[in-house]
């Protein structure tokens, strides 16, 4: 048993629903009790889909348990087939149905439906949402994809985008545009937008673009083994990664000098003098492994931030993320415990969080600005406007999104100079962005402060500390207290404060 307040991922059957909802002419019959239909609202509300997810829930109740839930499942399957006439039926069980062991696969097979039926094993008590999506799509590909003749022109498949994915809708458009620019056509994009017939034709493509390893890697590995299709390992988020991605494709198709005609504005925006103030801003990153690793590279190499910590919630990515973090001289935080992430952020006191919807909450509580880089996300992260993360336009979007919550250029200096202005103080946050006004009632360092009660802050040192910008104040307080403790001081004076500052200066 594991105590959990918020979760980063849903159960594996939600991953299966993401695949089914992304595809066309597919229907999923899920053996599940009443209540599991809540999953529908993730798609209809958060993603604003205008259709119900193609899912039938058997809705068994306590009184069915003693009798015949198997018949209930078969009836639901038949009704769903007759009503929706899909080209492919997926069957599976949610957590409770897994316990009653009705064997949805065997029951559906016995119905003898004239369409392929794929039975999903979704171990609810071991695995999570991303696994569910990865596994579901893999099973579909394994069942339907057959060797076919390669297309004459050079084509690829886009693999991995699903319903409810973070910016998947726009990443597909951006990559299709980028590939077209390079003279490569997209054969099939899947799961998003694909029909079962499209899956059967995956083999026409010369290679696969693995957009999201979290949801498409199993399928890509299968296609590599069985249809001899290589797949790209670089996820093209950021300027450097996009360039690497193009080089990787060049190697795959034997055209080493591939070059796109369109370039991102990020390099110039980052080089322009206004961006000087971004230098060394301390950032913390948390999300799914893929988005965190790509974002960390952008943060360090393309914007000039100081990455002070990073982590992911999906254990499947623990190994690559750990070695990536090591290459940055950091230790990765691999956890799905929201409180642990909050604690780490409070301790690090970064100036910017790049995270998920959860970290947005943490940021609000701690008064630290946050930009979202990864699922899980909320309704505002499905914007009406075009806003990909991948390719040249993705880099533009990322630059704008990350810089937006920060205090801008000269404003920062003015805040330092005129700290006591009642309207123009740092506690009001960036003047262009009221939504990130720090919450004064929550003090991230309160606990730390209490622990060091034996060391007394003298009145003038305390007021001097208040003149330090709020986003580094916590760190300054801790450093000073540590310095004082190390030196065996009982009191902290203004001098101690500045001695500590000099001591920790880099």
């Amino acid at each position, binding site marked *: *048993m*594991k*105590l*959990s*307040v918020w*979760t980063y991922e849903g159960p594996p059957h939600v991953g299966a629903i993401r695949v089914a909802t992304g595809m066309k002419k597919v229907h999923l019959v899920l053996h599940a009790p009443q*209540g599991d*239909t809540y999953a529908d*609202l993730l798609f209809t509300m958060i993603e604003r*889909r205008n259709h119900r997810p193609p899912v039938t829930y058997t809705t068994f109740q306590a009184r069915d348990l003693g009798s015949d839930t198997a018949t209930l499942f078969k009836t639901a399957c038949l009704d769903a087939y007759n009503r929706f006439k899909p080209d492919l039926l997926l069957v599976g069980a949610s957590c409770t149905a897994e316990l009653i062991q009705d064997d949805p696969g065997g029951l559906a097979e016995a119905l003898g439906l004239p369409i392929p039926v794929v039975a999903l094993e979704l171990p609810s008590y071991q695995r999570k949402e991303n696994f569910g999506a990865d596994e579901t799509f893999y099973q579909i590909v394994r069942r339907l994809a057959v060797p076919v003749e390669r297309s004459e022109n050079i084509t690829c498949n886009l693999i991995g985008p699903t319903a409810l994915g973070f910016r998947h809708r726009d990443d597909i458009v951006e990559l299709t545009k980028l590939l077209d620019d390079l003279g490569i056509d997209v054969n099939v994009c899947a799961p998003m937008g694909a029909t079962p017939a499209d899956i059967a034709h995956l083999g026409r493509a010369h290679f696969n673009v693995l957009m999201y390893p979290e949801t498409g890697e199993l399928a890509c590995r299968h296609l590599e083994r069985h249809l001899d299709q290589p797949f790209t390992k670089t996820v093209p988020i950021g300027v450097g990664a996009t360039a690497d991605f193009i080089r990787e494709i060049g190697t795959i198709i034997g055209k080493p000098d591939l070059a796109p005609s369109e370039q991102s504005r990020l390099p110039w925006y980052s080089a322009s003098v206004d961006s000087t103030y971004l230098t060394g801003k301390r950032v913390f990153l948390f999300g799914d492994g893929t988005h965190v690793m790509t974002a960390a590279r952008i943060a360090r190499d393309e914007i000039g931030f100081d990455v002070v910590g990073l982590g992911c919630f999906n254990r499947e990515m623990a190994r690559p993320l750990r070695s990536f973090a090591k290459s940055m001289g950091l230790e990765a935080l691999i956890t799905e415990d929201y409180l642990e992430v909050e604690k780490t952020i409070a301790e690090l006191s970064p100036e910017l969080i790049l995270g998920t919807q959860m970290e947005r909450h943490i940021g609000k509580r701690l008064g630290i600005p946050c930009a979202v880089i990864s699922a899980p996300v909320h309704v505002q992260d499905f914007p009406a406007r075009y806003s990909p993360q991948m390719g040249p336009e993705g880099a533009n979007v990322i630059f704008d999104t990350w810089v937006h919550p920060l205090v801008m250029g000269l404003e920062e200096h003015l805040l330092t100079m005129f700290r006591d202005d009642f309207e123009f103080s740092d506690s009001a946050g960036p003047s262009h962005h009221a939504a990130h006004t720090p919450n004064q009632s929550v003090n991230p360092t309160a606990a730390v402060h209490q622990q060091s009660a034996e060391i007394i802050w003298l009145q003038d040192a305390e007021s001097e500390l208040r003149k330090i910008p709020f986003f580094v104040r916590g760190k300054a307080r801790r450093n000073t207290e540590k310095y004082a403790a190390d030196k065996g001081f009982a009191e902290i004076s203004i001098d101690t404060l500045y001695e500590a500052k000099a001591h920790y200066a880099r």
Partner: protein
Amino acid sequence: MPNDLAPLGCGQAPVLKQRGQHEVFCGLTSIIWLHRKMQDAFFLVVGSRTCAHLLQSAAGVMIFAEPRFATAILEETDLAGMADAHVELERNVSELLSRRPDVKRLFLVGSCPSEVIKIDLATMAKKLSEKYAPHVNVINFSGSGIETTFTQGEDACLEAVIRDLETSDKTQLAVLGALPDVVQDQMLRLLTQMGIADVMVLPQVTSDTHSVVGPNTHFICAQPFLGASYDEMVRRGAQPISAPFPFGAQGTTAWLAAIADRFDVPQSTFDAVIAAPKARAEQAIAKVAETLSGRSIFFFPDSQLEIPLARFLANECGMVLTEVGSPYIHRALVGHDLDALADHVVISEGQDVDKQLDRVFDCKPDLTVCGLGLANPLEAEGLSTKWAIELVFSPIHFYEQAADLASLFARPLMRSDLLRVGDVA
């Protein structure tokens, strides 16, 4: 699924009983408002990752404060019997209580998986209560989807709370059902003005309030979904007061009148107390009714508020009822409201969502009340919808909120009249 038409003999309307896919929440969802209402309580769901995901999705992950609920997520080792569920739960509870020393009432909430693998939470609750007495009272109820629908979670919680109350001969009025604070204060003011001062409201905001129950307790439900709590009160010897639910001017008047009658409040006092707020409510409703009058409405089953709300919208706002669906129909509770509905109205109980969708498309109502999973898909088909969940989160009871309640239904209609955005489907 057969649609067997069983006559209910109430309001002469046959009830369409539906068995099929239910597009509704399970009882765990009640925790979303219960944990805000009960300020010294913590709700620990013993369940799966699905339960945890449901709670945060239903809450829209919009609660910025640390919530007073959490899930003890069952893992493979718990199922394989490798870990003793009781020991594991005890460890989780101790971890939780050490982090939240302010918790005075801990609810162990059963879920589908905990019921299927038969974790005995009742015994656990008793054991833990003894361990943590007198600081923490541990109570158990089930919010599982195999037994409860949405608001029935509050019913199950309240039933457990009532079971825990001490017995007393004290003469008092008990009002059952979680109400927004502002609404509860209005209600208590009206009752006090009528001379009824000894009022116990369940669930209690904090456990410090000494609540008792017994043969001289007269009780009334403020929410229509409290069937099990009603039965438990009767078992404890309390005497039910039966009335329409306090929605709208008429509903509120009838509800208050039933209480006044039981407590022998003089007619003149009663009239004096309600005169001003009643007039205000009628006047305010009349304005909103201009939008609602003559418009047709269709209810998908959701919170069990459907029948009382249908009464209000038809009889006080002039709306035309088509189908009124409810997950369950407790006749002892909604009988008065059901009797007040016109007999041509289709009353349905339970759900087979695909068939119900066929019916809503056949009837093309001006407004459809449904859950969040259906609202956008129906909007895309050109139907105006009202999210049902808002009705359990908003102050809608009694005189001062009567027009607000009507406005919740008027707003989508006004909006679709207002927008000039072309075809959205």
